[in-house]
């Protein structure tokens, strides 16, 4: 480039800073799908099996687990996993439909992406209401 040439737009970003880019809805659904999947794998399966084992082992252990679920912090953690499962569930179904080219126009994909986010959060809140 000749030294006299000025770049056409001076404020162009020189690198892709993910924190500075406003992500489109499908990108947010996608990264949440990945984060929720990783969280469910690393923490969720072990907790699920541990809870299943305890709940089936004896009436006393079942009662202890039920009492444990009265603690607000346990409820909150449970709701966190509930949201992760619901988001992963609905985002996954959305990907299945996209795979077979149902709803894969940009407009539909944005709408279904927003629906995944909203439905997951609403059902998590309802689960919270039911739990409390």
């Amino acid at each position, binding site marked *: 480039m000749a030294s006299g040439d000025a770049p056409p737009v001076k404020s162009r970003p020189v690198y892709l800073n993910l924190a500075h880019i406003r992500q489109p809805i499908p990108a947010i659904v996608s990264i949440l799908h990945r984060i929720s999947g990783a969280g469910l794998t690393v923490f969720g399966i072990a907790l699920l099996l541990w809870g299943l084992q305890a709940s*089936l082992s004896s009436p006393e252990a*079942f009662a202890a687990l039920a009492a444990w679920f009265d603690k607000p912090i346990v409820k909150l953690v449970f709701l966190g996993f509930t949201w992760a499962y619901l988001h992963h569930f609905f985002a996954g179904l959305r990907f299945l439909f996209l795979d077979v080219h149902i709803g894969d126009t940009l407009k539909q994909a944005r709408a279904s992406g927003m629906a995944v986010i909203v439905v997951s959060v609403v059902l998590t809140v309802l689960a919270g209401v039911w739990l409390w």
Partner: protein
Amino acid sequence: MVTRPLRDSVGAHYGSRSWLIQRSTALIMVVYTLVFLGLVITKRRFDYEAWTALFSSAAFRVASLLFIASLCWHAWIGMRDIWMDYVKPVGVRLLVEALTVVMLVIFVIWAADILWLGAVR
């Protein structure tokens, strides 16, 4: 005579197999999740007797183990994708992938233990 190579020299081509496994295990989990919620939510009382009665059915135990096995296989494909995307040094990636496989295999064995042997003790 024209000979074709036995396999393509570029690309492993296991992607479509992983894709299919990830989708089919997902569908198994969708069905199990809906059946499970249907069975639990319709219970008038949710207590130890009702809970263990559910798991006393061999069909439900088989379905539950199928769910856990699907979950772990599905998780393997997803976790492998994550490690491949973010962990670039090959040695470290192989290590975390191996640890992931060991963890998930233990989960499946643990689930089988809970569902069958747990009742014997």
